[in-house]
């Protein structure tokens, strides 16, 4: 029931946005921004691109909003727009002349571009990662929360835990590897015939 009310509310907001109501579109953006930014964040070589590309995607979607049929899957439509922006940006990065300062970015962009084409369109990276974080041991989860959600520098976290900063870096490296494994397992379990 709650889910159905939410969908009705968003459909209503989309109709009002199609009529040119920016505030109604704000409600739509609020509903989908975390999922879209999480999707984009997985395929950009620099974190600074995430919000710019997400914003471009939402603005492009708004400009084409009358082409969207309310009642169908808005996120799938939005994700395709974001995919097109991402693909264009990664290709621009790959075409740039090789420069020392940008080479790491180029290497990352090439690999991310390959992965972008392999990710299942229906995958919800946001929910998968949230779930995997919730399964971490307490201390690991606290480190992740403080660093990524609260923006706390590693040195400060290390000080609070009475550990050297270097050991927190190693711990975070292992936590990220563990989260990756968790997501891979979820992905494998979701494949037809595996579960």
């Amino acid at each position, binding site marked *: 029931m709650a889910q159905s009310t939410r969908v009705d509310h968003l459909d209503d907001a989309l109709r009002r946005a199609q009529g040119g109501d920016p505030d109604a579109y704000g409600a739509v953006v609020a509903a989908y921004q975390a999922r879209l930014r999480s999707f984009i964040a997985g395929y950009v070589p620099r974190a600074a691109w995430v919000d710019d590309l997400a914003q471009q995607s939402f603005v492009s979607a708004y400009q084409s909003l009358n082409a969207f049929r309310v009642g169908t899957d808005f996120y799938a439509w939005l994700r395709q727009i974001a995919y097109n922006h991402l693909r264009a940006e990664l290709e621009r990065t790959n075409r740039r002349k090789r420069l020392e300062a940008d080479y790491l970015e180029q290497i990352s962009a090439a690999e*991310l571009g390959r992965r972008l084409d392999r990710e299942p369109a229906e995958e919800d990276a946001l929910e998968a990662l949230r779930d995997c974080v919730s399964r971490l041991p307490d201390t690991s989860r606290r480190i992740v929360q403080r660093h990524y959600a609260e923006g706390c520098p590693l040195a400060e976290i290390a000080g609070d835990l009475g550990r050297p900063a270097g050991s927190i870096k190693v711990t975070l490296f292992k936590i990220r590897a563990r989260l*990756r494994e968790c997501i891979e397992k979820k992905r494998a379990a979701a494949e037809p015939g595996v579960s």
Partner: protein
Amino acid sequence: MREELEALVQDCLDGTLDAEGRDRLARELEADPAARAEFVDQLQIHQRLRPTLETSGSAFVDSVVREVRLLGDAERFSKGVVHEIKRSTGSSRRRVWEMAAAAMILAAVGFALIQRGGSGTSARPAGQVLLVVGRMPLEAGDARVKERLESLGFGVVAKPALQVVPSDGAGKALIALSSTALAMDVTDVPGELTAKFRDSGVPVLVWEPRLFYDLGMIGGKEHQKDWGALKDQSRLVLTDPAHPLTAGLSGTVPVYSGPNRLSWGLVRGDAIKVATLEGHPDRAVLFAYDRGASMPGLVAPARRVGLFLFDTTALHLTPQGWTLFDAAVRWCAAEK
């Protein structure tokens, strides 16, 4: 993954890897596909964690709504002008079309003015800053600077050096020239940027040491002798504690949380020398000229400030570093 390589990856994700380290990491990853895959695994999780765990995306939502409002304003502007002109031109169809064409030009100009901000732009009480950068989307260091400027109450119009035109600076409270503007695969930008902003009557804050000479702010143009970006620095020495650019700080001040580059220039006696490199009292890392002051290259058409930042170093500024940044922005923009 080898321990040494793992440490490089950790530093890279932590934002503490310098340019040499990034290059070394790039070469290691190029030679080792398995390590490259593991690095990208780490990168993907690292970058997804922030938006995934963030409890509120309200600032992002606000920025999108602001953008779509601007789109709406541009459309209404266009329709309104055409309507007014049609109403006043009577029955002459030819006249209507001529005026409509003129209206469309006006509308385009209006739209350009409204849109000039690019992403996340709005007029705010402190005025607008034109931030000239290497590329869009913004590099991490430029993004941090933009956030800071916005937190000071400025609207920020970010433009790549290749696309910026002199009129972009018109009416701005400040033009900020980032060192990323010259970091791209472009060879003719320094001269172009100089031509665009050397004589500008708008205050200029610059942290690209290669431009200090071109903008007339230092007397020599020889790299490492007259200007440079010295690596492995984290502190600077304040030499004019009474000046507002020091924001009340004095002595030797840590401006970066770890070793990084400080942009410097060899200034003459006519500059306000606010801070220098440690051990190099002749190399200024924060210096300024008031409007009308004699600079080595010309009389300052408006305030000019040379700042110590370089590329991504804004990511590593200490609270004292940000205090000096804020003071530089405020002093430079204050005359408008």
